[in-house]
């Protein structure tokens, strides 16, 4: 049997990769803990307006979203091009809002319900008419904590 012969002097041994899984796991756990899956797929176009005086929404689990915007191209044949309301992952009508709010309330504990916030993600190009209608529907069902979702820009 042939023997491997050492060539030349001592070689630098390869970098030990034994700790690589640990490092990767650490990163993995970090991302697992900060991850929040995207709430829903947008079926309407939403380009948020910018504002300077924004506040962060604290309890993310207590926030329900209402999207308003023009339907995306794939849904325009069915829903038209005028801005529509999207609840969960369906393009809905205004009169669906009270049911949606009720369902959102039912999915939270009673003690948490007064702190629920409704975040309006509305496209910049939408008109106030539909927003006013949404607001009126929200008022009807006593959903009064509202957030106009915006991007943050620095104050001039």
């Amino acid at each position: 049997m042939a023997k491997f012969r050492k060539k030349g002097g001592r070689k630098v041994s390869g970098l030990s990769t034994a700790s690589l899984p640990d490092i990767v796991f650490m990163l993995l756990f970090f991302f697992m803990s900060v991850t929040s899956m995207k709430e829903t797929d947008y079926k309407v176009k939403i380009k948020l307006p910018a504002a300077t005086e924004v506040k962060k929404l604290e309890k993310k689990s207590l926030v329900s979203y209402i999207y308003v915007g023009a339907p995306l191209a794939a849904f325009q044949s069915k829903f038209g091009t005028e801005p529509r309301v999207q609840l969960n992952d369906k393009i809905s009508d205004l009169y669906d809002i009270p049911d949606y709010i009720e369902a959102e309330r039912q999915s939270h504990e009673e003690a948490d319900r007064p702190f629920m916030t409704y975040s309006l993600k509305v496209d910049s190009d939408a008109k106030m008419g539909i927003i006013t209608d949404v607001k009126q529907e929200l008022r009807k069902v006593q959903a009064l904590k509202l957030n106009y979702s915006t991007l943050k820009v620095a104050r001039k």
Partner: protein
Amino acid sequence: MRQVGDINASSQADIAFLLLIFFLVTTSMDVDQGLLRQLPPPSTEEQPKTEQINERNIFIVLINKDNQLAIEGEQADFNELTDRTIKFLTNPANSENLAEQVKASVKYDELASKPDKKAEAEAMKAVLDNCGDVNITRGVVSLQNDRGTKYETYIQVQNSIVAAFNICRDEFAKEYFGKVYDEISADEQKIVKTVFPLNISEAEPRSVK
């Protein structure tokens, strides 16, 4: 005796990598942020008559369907809105047509005489105890918009008005607590909030010419 060999763990890193990449891709770190606002409760027929507000204490901001701005009935530029609102609220020259200023002690007596305003009276007491007899504004900003107003414009106007309140609060906080509003304690913030309550009223929807 045959020995069971160790499980080969060299693929562990690959599996972990795979998961890592999955979470990297699905992560959305952005937190939702925006302008928080409280809607008024639904209007009912037999609503008790709300207290009458003197006309000088209402700052009317109008946006029409062509996204033009009017302040107190006159067309105005978006850049002036914040400054005009601050001037209206603080009324430094004590002018007749800007918001009325009342002393905290007067406001306290007013609130204390009404049994349903106990919490407000208490908050006013805290102001009196901590900052002395400061001026409290009676100003209310009334925001009206048309159904045809663009959402972007509406947010811009809302933002300018909130900015005015925030600047007023910051200045007050700096004067009495030495720091800006965001850096003072929750109790101190409550005091500043009592002095400058975010009084933005949005009219019942109607069309604006």
